[in-house]
Structure formats: structure tokens, C-alpha cells
């Protein structure tokens, strides 16, 4: 398969791993932002090919993990309404809310549908004009253009029965928050390639300059990750800061301008709570007032949910890179993919799920 096989060649992987080993002279701590990158690292066992002084910590870039509990509870409240068709990406269905999850709501009679594209949710609304269709619009800058397109299409079509429960989050403010924390230990970032494919990487340049860190825009295949790590380690060893682009086959400095234009028309920046981390100023998108009619939070009375996290879950420490999944006393015992206590154990991008699924029990 083109663009996959050439980035999974065992001989090249060994070559890059050796090059990284030759480069590293002292301990460094790198963070890969995206849960998809964490997954590739663990799935292919790449972290085990890296030299001892190099520490990879897993970042907060898992949309399933950081969607705040309050929004999950609101989703559950909406999905329980008998008239509502609630459409969602598949992996949100198992995320635990305060007392249940969307799969259980479905089992109890809620009309919960898995869609692969938000535009399919628009089609559902066209097919069921007598029923309100709510789409759970979560994710980073990656999923935002399609979600924006859904709102835009619904407006063009004059669809009265379609709305979005929006919980969008943005990467750069989260990186700033991590770097600004007094206990930060991240010295370089592998930025999320797919996010940058949409947004470009201009907005990372002031972050790199201000916090004196190398940031390498990195892809998702094994060779992408090793190449990204190699570039980050080289910059650290040479004392350079700034943004480099490993993922040039998909990412330009400017990014996808038509997508950015649509995003600007549909969304506006807002403060957003991140599950396990807390409110990060300016770290989210919500629908602009012109699209208020498509905002499920305004269309339905979903306030008044009181969110309750499991006291055992250390998701915040995991998502900020302070702890690893097997540092958690509940990991693999009281918290498993069948009974997740926190979102990082929910498939498929959470660090805990990756560690559990690929047998990193200790």
C-alpha cells in the first residue's frame, strides 16, 4: 500500500533507531502530542528501540480522552431523549460519563448511531425530517473542517432538525499550558502532523521561540516517528530551537487555507475545559452566533449536569506526561477497556488503552 509500506520497512526502522542512538549524549524528554502517534509507538514497539537516556511522554492529543466529562454527560442526556437521533464517531460511545456511557444508553433504547463522517449525520437529518438529529462534534483541528462543513451544509439546506454538540479543542494553547506549568519537564515536542495538515505550523513558531523548545511536525507511520525523534534530538543536542517539518508530504507552513477559511466562518475561539487537565484559556472552538441555530446546547436544555470523575483515575497526570499508565494503581485491574474508569483507557488513541492492548502491563 503506497504511503504506508515505505514507512514501515524494518531495515529503515533499524537504521533510524541506530542514528538516534548515535545522536543522544544525555537525557532528554520529548512529548508526542497526538494519541495516534502514541499508538504507533506502542503498537510497533518503537519506544523499545530508543536509547535509555531518551524519555518519551505521551501528550494530550486524544480527542476521546480530553472531551470534558460535562460534555459526555450532556451527550448522554441528549441521547436519552426519545425523539433525538444522536450521531457520533464510534470511539466516543464507550467513554464513561458520570454514571453511564453512550453504548449503555443505546442498549436502553436510546437512538445512538455511529457515523464515520459528520456529513452522514446531515444526511440522517434529511432522511428523518420529523426527528432532531444531534451530532457529537468533538476532536482537534483535524476533525473540525468536516464538522464545520456539516454546520455549513445544514444552513445551506435550511435543515431545521440538525444540530451539533460541540466540544472542539486546539493544540497550541494546550502546548503553551504544558510549557508554562511550573513542573514541566518536556524539552521538545513532536507536533501532530494531521492537525498541522489543516492549520499549518506558523502558530507554533512563537511558542518555540518563547519557550525555547524544538517542535517537529511529525507524521504517524513508524519511520515518520523515528525521523521526527531524530530531528528533535539533533536540535536538542545542537541547542537549536524552532519549528521543523518532518511531515512535508502532507503539511505546509500555511496549511489548508480553504479549510481554515471555513473554520473561521463557522467557529470562534472560546475557553474550553479539558478532561483531566481543567480549563485552558482560548483552547476551544464553539459555533459562531450566526450558527447558533445549529448549537445543540442552545437548542436543548442540557444544563444542570453534575459531573463526577472516578477518584481513582489519574488521567490528568497521564495526559500531561507526569505519569505513565502503569504508574496508576487501577491500571489493568479495576480499570480495563471493558470497564474504563477514565477516558485514556477507552480505545483507540488513549495512552492507557494502547499500553493495555499491546501488553505493557508493567
Amino acid at each position, binding site marked *: 500500500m503506497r504511503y504506508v509500506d515505505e514507512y514501515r520497512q524494518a531495515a529503515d*526502522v533499524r537504521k533510524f533507531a541506530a542514528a538516534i542512538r548515535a545522536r543522544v549524549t544525555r537525557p532528554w524528554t520529548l512529548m508526542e502530542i497526538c494519541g495516534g502517534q502514541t499508538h504507533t509507538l506502542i503498537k*510497533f514497539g518503537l519506544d523499545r528501540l530508543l536509547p535509555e537516556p531518551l524519555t518519551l511522554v505521551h501528550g494530550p492529543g486524544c480527542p476521546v480522552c480530553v472531551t470534558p466529562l460535562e460534555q459526555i454527560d450532556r451527550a448522554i442526556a441528549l441521547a436519552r431523549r426519545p425523539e433525538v437521533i444522536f450521531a457520533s464517531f464510534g*470511539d466516543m460511545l464507550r467513554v464513561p460519563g458520570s454514571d453511564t456511557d453512550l453504548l449503555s444508553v443505546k442498549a436502553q433504547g436510546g437512538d445512538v448511531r455511529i457515523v464515520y463522517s459528520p456529513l452522514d449525520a446531515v444526511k440522517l437529518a434529511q432522511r428523518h425530517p420529523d426527528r432532531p438529529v444531534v451530532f457529537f462534534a468533538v476532536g482537534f483541528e483535524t476533525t473540525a473542517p468536516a464538522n464545520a462543513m456539516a454546520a455549513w451544509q445544514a444552513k445551506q439546506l435550511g435543515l431545521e432538525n440538525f444540530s451539533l454538540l460541540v466540544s472542539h479543542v486546539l493544540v497550541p494553547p494546550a502546548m503553551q499550558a504544558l510549557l508554562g506549568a511550573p513542573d514541566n519537564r518536556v524539552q521538545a515536542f513532536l507536533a501532530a502532523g494531521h492537525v498541522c495538515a489543516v492549520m499549518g505550523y506558523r502558530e507554533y513558531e512563537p511558542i518555540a521561540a518563547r519557550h525555547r523548545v524544538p517542535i517537529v511536525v511529525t507524521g504517524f507511520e513508524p519511520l515518520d516517528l523515528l525521523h521526527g525523534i531524530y530531528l528533535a534530538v539533533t536540535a536538542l543536542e545542537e541547542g537549536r530551537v524552532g519549528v521543523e517539518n518532518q511531515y512535508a508530504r502532507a503539511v505546509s507552513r500555511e496549511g489548508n487555507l480553504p479549510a481554515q477559511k471555513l473554520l473561521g466562518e463557522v467557529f470562534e475561539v472560546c475557553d474550553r475545559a479539558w478532561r483531566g487537565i481543567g480549563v485552558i484559556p482560548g483552547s476551544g472552538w464553539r459555533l459562531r452566533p450566526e450558527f447558533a441555530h445549529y448549537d445543540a446546547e442552545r437548542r436543548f436544555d442540557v444544563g444542570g449536569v453534575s459531573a463526577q470523575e472516578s477518584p481513582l483515575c489519574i488521567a490528568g497526570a497521564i495526559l500531561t506526561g507526569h505519569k505513565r499508565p502503569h504508574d496508576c494503581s487501577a491500571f489493568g485491574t479495576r480499570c480495563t477497556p471493558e470497564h474504563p474508569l477514565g477516558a485514556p483507557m477507552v480505545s483507540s488513541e488513549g495512552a492507557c488503552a494502547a499500553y493495555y492492548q499491546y501488553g505493557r502491563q508493567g
Partner: protein
Amino acid sequence: MSEPTAAGILGMTCPIPISDYPHVQLAHGGGGRLTHMLIEKLFAATFANPALAELHDGAVLEVPAGRLAISTDSFVVSPLFFPGGDIGSLAVHGTVNDLAMCGARPLALTAGFIIEEGLAMDDLWKIVRSLAAAAAAAGVAVVTGDTKVVDRGKGDGVFINTTGIGLVPAGVSIRPSAARPGDLVLINGRIAEHGIAIMSVREGLAFETALTSDSAALHELVARVLEAGGADVHVLRDPTRGGVSSALNEIATASRAGIRLDEAAIPIGEAVRGACEILGLDPLYVANEGKGLAIVARPAAERALAAMRAHPLGRDAAIIGEVVADHPGKVFLKSRVGGVRVVDMLSGEQLPRIC
């Protein structure tokens, strides 16, 4: 009465006048005139065989002496028609394959239909015709059956249960606990085709692809493998729901042995790999309906592989791993890039990921 061929069955037209009954009604399951019409005209005429022609409460069969295998399976697939098959053909292949994985030659099937009121009569006819044709192609008679109709909203079009009996040849002893360190793991072809084909036509997930389900009856292929491998064939298992990983985890647990897979050796089509990459699914967890895993003692493995490859359903057969003594109960995979990871049992359902 001569028994019909698959081609003959597929050429038949619906014996129930569509204009009279365009949809199945509750009365078709009520035991009265309509039930009789449905059973006699639609079912008995299509499945035509001497045992069924008796229209008795059950079938009475002559069976040779020896050991019988029996297996039952219920089919609830949605959508009812999918690329490469439908619930009717699947209901035959699923149960025939379960018998084959016991090492048995299938002798006869039963078919129970639970039909939702309102199902298009033409759809029911297509399904019955397809089931009958698949049974005829497999050389197995549907000897008795049952029909119920449930209220609209209480079923998903139609559910089918099939039970099969088969004869286990002397000397064949296939058990999930029989894998031994040193045995090799064989599969008869490309994985994950059924699950991805179904997903490609599901509401909300539809994507364009030429993929078809691998749904097929494997008993002939299994018979060739057993002829070639004899008592060295230790375990057979069809990796249906939960895919290859769940089937091998069950075998590893039952046999108290480890299984080591080689990712690069596992046959998989380009389109399926692409769909799995896009959807965020692991093909090792995706369902198959025309694949069989065979765990064979090393000296006989090449013979068993050659037997698979000589059969039309085994052209892409491969040796994909081995049974090992360490890590009993666990399945490991050597990845394409050389790393090793655990392949665990599937937790819940595989759900397509966000991004």
C-alpha cells in the same frame, strides 16, 4: 423427487404471488392457511428433499455408524444483503464451517426463520432461494425447519437459525486444546474481508469499495487438509466474530501454549488493509466467514498448506505463525518493523475511531 441444484434453485421465481402478499404478515406465522402456503410453496418446494417432503414434525435420517458432530448458529446480520452474499447463504456457510472445524463432513441442516412482519415477500424469497442454493452447492440438505413471524419492530427483517449435523471420520480428533509447541498456524487466505464488506454497506459508514465478503463453505477444503495432514492436524477454527486474534487467543488459552504470529506472513488484500487504516480497525479483529485456521504438527504443515492451496478457496493460504511453549495463553505478533506486541482478545466491539 429429484434434488435441485444450486443453479436450478437460483433460476426459480417466487412461488408466492407477490401481488397477493407483497409483505409478510403476522398471519404467515399464525398456523393457518397462510402459514401452510408459505411453508409448502416457499420453503418445502425450494429446499425440496425426501426428508422435508414428509412435512412431518421432524426429519428422520439414515446415518452411517460413527461419531456425529452437531453445531448451531443464529444469524442476525444487518444489512440482510451484502456484497458477496446475504443472510441466507451465510446461514449455510456459518454452520457448515462450524461442523467442518470439528473435522466433520456435514450431513444435514435445519433452518429456523424468525421473520419480522412487513418484510418484503420478494426479499424473503431471495433469502430462501439463496439459502437453498448454498446448501445445494455444499451438498447438504435442509431437512427440517420452522417459521415464526413477530410484530413489526421486534426483529431486524429476518433472523435465521441453522443447526447442522455431520459425521466425523474415524481417526480425526480435532480439539481446541490440542495445539502443541512446535505446531505451525495455517490460514486458507486473506483475512478481514467479511467484516469490512459488511461495514462498507452499513448506514453511516458506507464507503465505496469493490470488496466482497469471503462467505464460503469450507468443508471440502478441510477434507483435503485432513487427508493431507491426518492426525497431525491438531486444531481447526474458523475466525468469525472477533477475527483471527480472538480465535487464536481461545486456542492459546485452551491449549495452555503461546502463539507467535508473523505480521508480514498474514495474507491481507490491499483494499482491506486500506479500509482498516482509514477506519482505525485492526484486521486481526475483523470477522471472516470463509476462512479457517489450522494448527498442524510441523512435519505435516507443508503438506497441509499444499492441500489448501490446491483448493479454490485456499489459493492464498499461508503459514502465519507457530505455537510456542513460552507465555502460555498469550498470542504475540512480530510486527512488520520487527517489534513484538501482544495480540489480546477483543474488548467489546471494535469501534471506528475519530481521526
